[in-house]
């Protein structure tokens, strides 16, 4: 019977089962709601956050930080990666420093960014962009170098110029890995924005979590996590959708995992 069900139905059933066990365990063992709230309580807070409209300014602020930061990070990663991949001098001079910078845990320097760019959106956007920048830049460089040697020889044999090889071969080849970088960055973008809000903010889902924490509203914190997960999954899904359209010739098993 199980194999005949659709994958989606199986996933939903699993979720329902986990929630039921969770709810049952909380009631059976009388677990304190301050330690682990029941799913029903979380659902109640989820609804009340929407009903009172309390969530929206925070939701909009965090979504803005995520999208803007991801956008800037992706743009900078694409530009830097392309330049480093195509200009050997930059590769030799600049790339070692970029790698050194990458080894600095950016979350640890988040307070510095708040100091420099203030408590507003700017500091969150910068942190998010910086977090997204590296995986994208590295994937762009790796992408441009992943060119198939046989295809390169073929292009040369037909007298292709450097620009033609770049446009018709290197860029399409690079797209495969670039999208892998964008997928990683889409997940990191959510982390970046929330960490920025943890460090210092007056609005945002990260700020809301810390303030609910002060009030010991643990169910409310979980409800906010659901919003964050929704943003993360949607962004990741959009990147995957764009990938399946733009890099249609690559069929990987991973395509079936999350969809």
């Amino acid at each position, binding site marked *: 019977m199980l194999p005949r069900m659709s994958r989606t139905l199986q996933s939903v059933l699993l979720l329902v089962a986990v929630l039921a066990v969770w709810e049952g365990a909380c009631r059976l063992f009388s677990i304190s709601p301050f330690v682990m709230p029941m799913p029903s309580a979380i659902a109640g807070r989820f609804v009340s956050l929407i009903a009172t409209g309390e969530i929206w300014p925070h939701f909009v602020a965090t979504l803005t930080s995520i999208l803007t930061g991801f956008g800037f990070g992706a743009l900078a990663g694409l530009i830097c990666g392309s330049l480093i991949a195509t200009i050997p001098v930059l590769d030799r001079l600049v790339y070692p420093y970029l790698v050194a910078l990458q080894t600095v845990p950016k979350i640890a320097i988040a307070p510095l960014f708040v100091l420099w760019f203030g408590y507003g959106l700017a500091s969150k956007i910068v942190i998010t962009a910086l977090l997204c920048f590296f995986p994208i830049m590295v994937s762009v460089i790796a992408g441009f170098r992943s060119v198939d040697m*046989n295809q390169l020889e*073929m292009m*040369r044999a*037909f*007298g292709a110029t450097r620009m*033609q090889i770049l446009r*018709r071969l290197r860029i399409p080849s690079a797209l495969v890995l670039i999208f892998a970088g964008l997928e990683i960055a889409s997940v990191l973008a959510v982390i970046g924005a929330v960490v920025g809000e943890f460090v210092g903010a007056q609005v945002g889902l990260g700020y809301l979590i810390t303030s609910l924490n002060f009030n010991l509203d643990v169910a409310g914190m979980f409800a906010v996590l659901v919003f964050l997960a929704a943003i993360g999954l949607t962004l990741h899904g959009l990147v995957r959708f764009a990938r399946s359209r733009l890099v249609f010739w690559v069929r990987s098993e991973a395509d079936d995992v999350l969809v």
Partner: protein
Amino acid sequence: MAVETSNPGEVHKRAMIDVRALEKRFATRSGEEVLALAGVNLSVAEGEFLSVVGPSGCGKTTLLRILAGLDTPTGGQAMIDDQLVKGSRDDVGIVFQAATLLPWYTVLENVLLPAGLKGDVSTAATARARDLLKLVDLADFGRKYPFELSGGMQQRVAICRALMRNPKILLMDEPFGALDAMTRETMNVELMRWCSEEKKTVVFITHSIPEAVLLGDRVVVMSPRPGRISRVLDVDIARPRGLKTMALPQFGALCDEIRTVFGADPVRARDL
């Protein structure tokens, strides 16, 4: 060893490809020098189908790469149409062992690639590409993508791409080496039809002796260390040839003769 390859039957035809004292040295990673080609003399007449056969390491691919302008010789010279080969030429089409189609382009776009690279996006070019696809029985596949095609079909697209700019010369480097035996035989017979319709000078590299004899007007036999021409044989079997040609006694005799060049017992080396 240099071998004079002038062919009495072809004297009236001018040489389309002329290779003189060609030599190619490679430095390996360990710093040793490898002589990939030594003293190769070869002349290919206009419209001739020349097979080049030999074991791996005999320099046959190096020879083709030099003719294609992908490698430069370290000695001697390679002339095409009385001009020294310096880089890729419009009048030379090339087919590699792998189809090397670009997966983001449709079949038609892949065939059009050589024209597009020269800035020719005319409707005449598209018409030519469609005619070529029709020639190789892929008329209905123009809008498909390479990953939707079998290996044999992909290689047929690669042949169309090589013919796109209507080159005088077609260079083929073991084009059917990756195909299964049955597809390979069909492709051999078809290739002879396409080439007779398109009237090309062809240099066809292979490591299959029967394939070399079936296709070639002449067969150049190469041997390794150093890569050189050790024998040139005329294939006096009338065209059109087909799969039945391989059952002719002359065919078997020629194959055996080539096998003896490699110092092998004709019977024991039959698999070569």
